[in-house]
């Protein structure tokens, strides 16, 4: 929470003024019972209809107190709202910036839905907390304290009762709150539980029906749901106490107050007006305490959200993107000019986890086409994600143009690289908007060229040109159509290094081939990395890197690897197998 307080820094004045005006309002409210007391004493003292002007004067004072209270209260609301919304705007800005700058491994770790909840629901809760805090946190204790002080000015003996009662009330409210908060947490986690189950039931509808387990799922849900209702009821036993209990305590206190007042009046130490004033102060304390208890719930919720947000800010792992920009560029002169070098690189996603990549070394010349092949989980994606610095080496060094990428500015590095990710994602906007992600200044011709190269002309045509709308996530396109457009997007960039991360999985073999041919013919000769599980996709590469369990099992041309790399041969044969021997003959038939 402390971390988030800096976002109030810009609103220091508002944060000061809001409670101040709130306190002013409270002060005026505290005067009201005094006026009433004078009024009553005046009534009881006047034996005749006497002096009506006093009553009128009191009335005017009451109205003036009301108006001044209204003005200060409105002012306070304004400053509080201003501070709260400003606070949340700055917080959202920073949080969004932080999230979007997280490294790949941090994103993986955090999960999308968590990030979205933090950005939306949690920030809103904190905003509300700040707003209510500024408005009420000082007001309520001030009124309570003020009422006690006022009581002392009226009658010390009765005021002592006030002290005791306030203490009792605080303890009561505190205990209820303390017992209630863990219950609320339980309720929340129960709610999360049924949310998860509902989501699963929807996303898994086919599987659930195919396995005929609807009834069991229903039972599971009903059990979780019943447990939730049980927890809610239990929580209600405690939280439901708050209002009745404080009400009873205050009214018993009033009864005691009146009997003490009775004694004091008979002694002549107190007037009837005084008793009424004390009575009014006691009632005020009740109202404020309830408000205060509600405030504590709000604040507690806000604090929980704030902590969750701070935790997100906390995530700035060793590979924070800007951490090492200032360090001098570590250049390496290895004699030959390589665009990319891996020097004994290992990667571990988390401390203590197994290495995702171990001791990878290779060097690539500008314009080469490198195929990367390997089984599921062999480290293909990890390897190519290290090239634009999405994952940073745990040990060893990655060099681009002879410079350690850890000493390179992320923007410069990523400017060199065009990536076609495994998951074909497009964004809401037109096709053109999406392609311009690759290059803001791309002309229509540039984009049409890229579309042609990525065999996506028919996609653009059927959708109605570059200006055609794409829905969020590219929902109005098929998987294959999306994939081709993501390739076009990368080609618009004309990158020096082009990475195709299994990006033809949704394409049929014919399209895949045309695409590879087109890329080969690019006039700016990019260095290309093709990741695939299909041997056919990488066979034509200048060199192929074979990965197994995060280690390099071989590197070389297709023919070389067929000869001396068992893993590669096995992969190849699993896809073409005996067919190689059979097909030509069959075809000949």
């Amino acid at each position, binding site marked *: 929470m402390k971390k988030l307080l800096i976002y109030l820094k810009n609103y220091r004045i508002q944060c000061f003024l809001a409670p101040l005006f709130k306190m002013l309002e409270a002060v005026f409210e505290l005067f009201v019972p005094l006026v009433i007391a004078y009024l009553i004493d005046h009534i009881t003292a006047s034996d005749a209809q006497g002096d009506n002007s006093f009553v009128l004067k*009191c009335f005017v004072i009451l109205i003036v107190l009301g108006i001044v209270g209204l003005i200060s209260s409105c002012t306070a609301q304004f400053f509080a709202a201003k501070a709260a919304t400003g606070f949340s705007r700055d917080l959202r800005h920073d949080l969004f910036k932080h999230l979007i700058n997280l490294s790949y491994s941090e994103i993986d770790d955090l999960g999308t839905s968590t990030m979205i909840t933090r950005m939306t629901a949690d920030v809103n809760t904190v905003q509300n907390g700040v707003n209510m805090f500024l408005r009420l946190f000082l007001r309520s204790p001030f009124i309570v304290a003020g009422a006690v002080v006022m009581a002392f000015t009226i009658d010390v003996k009765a005021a002592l009762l006030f002290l005791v009662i306030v203490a009792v009330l605080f303890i009561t409210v505190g205990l209820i709150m303390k017992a209630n908060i863990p219950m609320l947490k339980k309720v929340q986690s129960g709610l999360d539980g049924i949310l998860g189950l509902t989501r699963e039931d929807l996303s898994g509808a086919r599987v659930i029906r195919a396995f005929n387990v609807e009834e069991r799922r229903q039972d599971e849900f009903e059990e979780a749901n019943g447990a939730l209702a049980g927890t809610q009821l239990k929580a209600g036993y405690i939280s439901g106490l708050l209002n009745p209990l404080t009400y009873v305590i205050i009214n018993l206190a009033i009864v005691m107050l009146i009997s003490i007042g009775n004694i004091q009046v008979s002694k002549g130490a107190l007037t009837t007006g005084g008793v009424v004033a004390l009575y009014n102060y006691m009632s005020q304390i009740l109202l404020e305490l309830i408000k205060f208890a509600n405030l504590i719930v709000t604040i507690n919720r806000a604090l929980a959200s704030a902590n969750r947000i701070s935790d997100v800010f906390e995530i700035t792992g060793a590979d924070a993107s800007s951490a090492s920009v200032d360090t001098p560029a570590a250049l390496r002169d290895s004699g030959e000019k390589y665009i990319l070098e891996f020097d004994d690189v290992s990667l571990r996603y988390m401390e203590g986890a197994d290495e995702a990549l171990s001791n990878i070394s290779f060097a690539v010349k500008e314009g080469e086409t490198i195929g990367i092949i390997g089984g599921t989980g062999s480290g293909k994606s990890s390897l190519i994600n290290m090239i634009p610095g999405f994952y940073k080496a745990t040990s060893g060094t990655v060099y681009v143009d002879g410079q350690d990428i850890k000493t390179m500015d992320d923007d410069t590095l990523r400017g060199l690289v065009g990536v076609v990710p495994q998951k074909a994602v497009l964004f809401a906007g037109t096709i053109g908007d999406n392609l311009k992600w690759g290059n803001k200044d791309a002309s229509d011709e540039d984009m049409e060229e890229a579309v042609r190269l990525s065999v996506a002309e028919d996609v653009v045509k059927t959708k109605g040109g570059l200006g055609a709308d794409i829905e969020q996530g590219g929902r109005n396109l098929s998987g294959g159509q999306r994939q081709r457009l993501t390739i076009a997007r990368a080609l618009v960039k004309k990158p020096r290094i082009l990475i195709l991360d299994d990006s033809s999985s949704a394409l*049929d073999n014919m399209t895949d081939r045309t695409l590879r041919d087109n890329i080969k013919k690019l006039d700016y000769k990019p260095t290309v990395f093709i990741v695939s599980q299909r041997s056919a996709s990488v066979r034509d590469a200048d060199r192929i890197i074979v990965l197994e369990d995060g280690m390099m099992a071989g590197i070389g041309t297709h023919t070389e690897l067929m000869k001396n790399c068992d893993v590669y041969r096995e992969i190849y044969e699993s896809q073409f197998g005996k067919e190689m021997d059979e097909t030509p003959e069959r075809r000949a038939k």
Partner: protein
Amino acid sequence: MALDTSGFVPKGNLNTDETALGKSGRKDTVRKVLKRLSGYRFLIIISLILAAVSVLFTLMVPIKIGDAIDCIEQLASGADSASGPVLQRAITDSLIKAAVFALIVGVSTYVMNLINNRITYHTVRDIRNDTIEKIGTLPLSYLDSHSQGDIVSRVVADADQFADGLLMGFTQAFTGIMTIIGTLVFMLRMNVAITLVVVCVTPLSLFIARFISSRTFKMFKKQSIERGEQTALIDEMIGNAKVVKAFNKEKDILERFDEINGRLSESSLKAIFYSSLTNPCTRFVNAVCYALVAMTGSYFAIMALGGNTGRVISGITVGTLTVFLSYANQYTKPFNEISSVISELQGAVACAARVFEILDEPSEVNDPDVSELKDVDGMIDIKDVDFSYVPDKELITDLNLNVTPGQRVAIVGPTGCGKTTMINLLMRFYDVDAGSISVDGTDIRKVTRDSLRSSYGMVLQDTWLTSATIADNIRFGAPNASMEEIVEAAKASGAHSFIRRLPDKYDTYIGEGGAELSQGQKQLLCITRVMLNIPPMLILDEATSSIDTRTEIRIQNAFHKMMQGRTSFIVAHRLSTIRESDVILVMKDGHIIEQGDHNTLLARGGFYYELYNSQFTDSAPKQ
């Protein structure tokens, strides 16, 4: 006790379907809600009685206190010594009564709270259970065509807000009205003139509150639209942060974000500020009312003391004045509450309508004369089937196919040709528009869905796992499977080797969507799930698409064993996986354009030939 909720944004869903809320729609919803609540009739009546009791005694307490104050005043103003002890006794008496009344209020409020909680939480629980049960029976076409997030929010948030809003709103409205009437009666009994003052002034606060809320409604609407806009951007960009980073778009996106953020901040400042004026304004009205009561009350009290009271204008005592003042303080509260209760009730009805919308959807029902499908041989006949998801966009037309028991059928073709649709029809996730599909000679519409579906083992491209342990996921379809059987199945599918390496082996818990596992590993688990208990027919829809070919070769044997003697349908991109099928159906645009085994089709030199050969590039080794 007024909780300051100004500036608090209503939770749950604001964008209710307008269609569900026409006037008749609303009436309809209310009727359904009442029907649902009728089970709690008894509790509701008790709750109402308790509310009445607590209101009555809440109003009695200040009167008793006022009585005590009157006695004190009489003692102080020097009553004769004879009446002293009487007055003292009267004071004690009033105070004891006040204390007892306060206790009664406390107890009845507490019990009422508990009862209301019970009604609320049990209603939500029942509604949720019903909704989930309903979802289990809804046709897949409904689930496919409705946003998952929307349904989830109906089940979770809307159900919550419905119960909260409706029941709390209901009791609050009742208590409020009771308080207003009660106070009115009590005040009239004490003094008509002062009562008139209170009655005239307090409704002002209601008008002010309504005025402000009608003005701020637009601001809140604007705020929620902008908030929605921002959430959409967050959802899109954070969800795809990797792509954003890959294209160095962080700055551009942040600019777009800031633009929305600025607008949002402004609109919420307006909404929060203007709506937060309600409280100070109503408090002011309250203060005016209070001052007026104090003034008029004082005059009457002075008149009473002066003995100047007639029949029409009755004088009052100091004690009565304090009672009036304390009533004046509380009288505005129910008015303010009722206005917020109205909007809460409207919100609750809107939420209820959204939930009932799901409950009212027609379920899949079995025909009355269905039988159980038993001892399936696996003969499948597809006759003249037409099907489309959208009425005017035909997808499958005039499809015919004969599958003999034990045959292995592969379906290939370009994306969108209708492969997955075939499976939807076979499993009867969707019903055919025309024609028929029969298993062992029985139309599948004449057998129960359960028995039909359990005759198929299904592995889909979409690898769905439930949040549970690996073992629980494997025994998903057969909860009673022993650990040995599970391990055996995992060995057969090849999943055992990676499970073994997990920290808790078979007891490893996988979260929602199986996030910690790779796509390939998830697919292996889905295969294992079927291996555990192999039904007489199989559907493998891209079952190995995410598994590398080497692993695939290893499980190929298991597949072979699995498919032995079972009718199987295999959909695959990788043609290598289907070479050995008995029949290969080549689909294009919803038709089967070629049909035959691998060699026949190759020899024909048609579409399949082209597809097949395109995966061997021209640079294939020339032996």
